[in-house]
């Protein structure tokens, strides 16, 4: 039996093969098409729309709009509340990031040094991460209440007279930062623990042989250097989350008093959805987007480097 039936012209065979191969192509495109559609419709289209909106004077509900160039941005940069929100956000980040990272690191180190109650500690510290922020913010609101709140009662016992934490211009942002740390440090702890688990035991053995066998020596010469990349990661992750602070602000202070706790995302929300200034809100969004994208790119760059190291 020879292959007479296959002796058709080469092009025909090539065409048939092309068909099977474009079959795989077609299948692949079928598989990615929903994602592709949504990617364009729900992500890239909207981003383009935001940029477009930011150049118009459009207000929700109105049927006309005009391109007004960068007038929205000019208004934004001339608006003291924007600058207030920006500086507040930066201050918030500047408090929450070190607080979260340090607390998370210390807790992780302590949890990992010995197995006693390890499971309990891990769960306890992680609980805030899982909890619904809007509900817990309400709870924090009562804890920070000037008269019946736990904080002022405790201070009272120690003979210190507390303040009205959330209504005082000096303390409102600080109180929110405290809540931010409370919610985030358990997550930092978990990331640090997984970083600690990845430190090879041989390094400790080597350090011990080299004479670094005290707890602090081990920490200084082995643990902390090895945690460098994880720390970088946690810092950036926490920074990103802090830039996104919204729930606690909305629930507790709504940016007050007198914009003392106004932050970018809350500003964005109020301008766009309370006042329906879509053009202005879009300009604010563009600025916000730029900040976050910059931060994420830094993270990607750093993570890339981490991959190269290991």
């Amino acid at each position, binding site marked *: 039996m020879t292959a007479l039936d296959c002796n058709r012209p080469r092009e025909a065979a090539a065409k048939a093969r092309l068909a099977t191969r474009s079959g795989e192509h077609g299948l692949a495109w079928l598989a*990615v098409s929903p994602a592709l559609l*949504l990617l364009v419709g729900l992500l890239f289209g909207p*981003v383009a729309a935001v940029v477009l909106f930011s150049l118009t004077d459009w207000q929700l509900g109105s049927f006309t709009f005009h391109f007004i160039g960068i007038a929205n941005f000019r208004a934004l940069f001339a608006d003291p509340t924007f600058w207030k929100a920006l500086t507040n956000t930066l201050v918030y980040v500047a408090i929450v990031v070190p607080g979260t990272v340090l607390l998370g690191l210390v807790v992780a180190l302590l949890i990992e040094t010995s197995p006693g109650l390890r499971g309990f500690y891990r769960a306890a510290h*992680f609980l805030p991460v899982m909890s619904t922020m809007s509900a817990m913010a309400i*709870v924090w609101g009562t804890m920070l209440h000037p008269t019946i709140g736990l904080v002022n009662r405790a201070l009272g016992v120690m003979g210190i007279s507390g303040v009205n934490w959330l209504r005082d211009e000096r303390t409102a942002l600080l109180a929110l930062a405290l809540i931010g740390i409370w919610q985030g440090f358990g997550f930092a702890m978990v*990331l640090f623990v997984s970083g600690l688990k990845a430190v090879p035991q041989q390094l400790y053995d080597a350090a011990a042989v080299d004479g670094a066998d005290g707890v602090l020596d081990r920490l200084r010469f082995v643990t902390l250097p090895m945690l460098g990349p994880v720390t970088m990661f946690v810092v950036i992750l926490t920074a990103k989350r802090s830039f996104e602070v919204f729930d606690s602000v909305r629930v507790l202070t709504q940016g007050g008093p007198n914009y003392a706790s106004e932050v970018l995302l809350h500003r964005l929300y109020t301008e766009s959805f309370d006042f329906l200034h879509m053009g202005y809100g879009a300009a604010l969004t563009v600025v*916000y987007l730029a900040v976050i994208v910059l931060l*994420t790119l830094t993270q990607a760059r750093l993570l890339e480097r981490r991959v190269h190291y290991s």
Partner: protein
Amino acid sequence: MISRFSDRRFAGRVARHAILLLTAAFALLPFVWMVSLSLKPPQEIFQADFRLWPTAFHGGENYRIALTAAPMFSFLLNGVLVCAAIFALQLLVCIPCAYALAKLRFRGRDTLFSAVLVGLLLPPQALAIPHFVMLNVFGFLDTYAALILPWAISTFGIFLLRQFFRSIPDEIIHAARLDGLGEFEIIWRIMIPMTAPALAAFGIFSVVAHWNDLFWPLIAVRRAEISTPALGILLFRDDEAGQFLGPLMAGAVIIVAPLLLAFLIAQRRFIDGLAVTTMK
């Protein structure tokens, strides 16, 4: 010598527990406070001296008010519904796409993957305005669709699942093709079972994020009947009954409890799931 060594050890252990108990107290205090208040009658809440456990147990009443004055159960139900729908949609969209990106060869694959990576950069809050406008145009505002549709695509999910699918050797897929499975059957019968832990991790990530999300529901819905838990508790607070701290705290307990219970039951899963998904 030995005794000094073990003394130091003992001191170290005590110090460890002392510090950890302190930080754990910081983490747990709001929960304790919340539960404590939710069991107290109003006058006791305002009393000068503070007790953990109420002298007059008022829990039943507080929880009854929370459950009747606001549609607490429907908040929870909405949460379950919305989270489940979002996750199901995300899987439906992400899995085939991630599989194609990981294992099929087609023109435009690298471009598409770059697009996914760029999508990863975009914070969802930045898309709120156009999403809002779009939903408004279609008349979907204040419906379940408004809560669900904007999250139908998760670039993070595509990225994560692609990584996991890539770790499955090509030979397995080749074997499956020779065994007569079609591509969608390969996804269903081979890829999904083999990456079940990764899918669970992604599920935990997604559900936790959307159960707790306040920003978007605040924009998308007004009606209490379709509010998710995070928004529901706010609506309850701004309601009359929520002016009383006991019922408000009871409401907070009800809102927070489901996720926390799930977490306590499957701690390892949750912690690893969230840690793994963010570290990828």
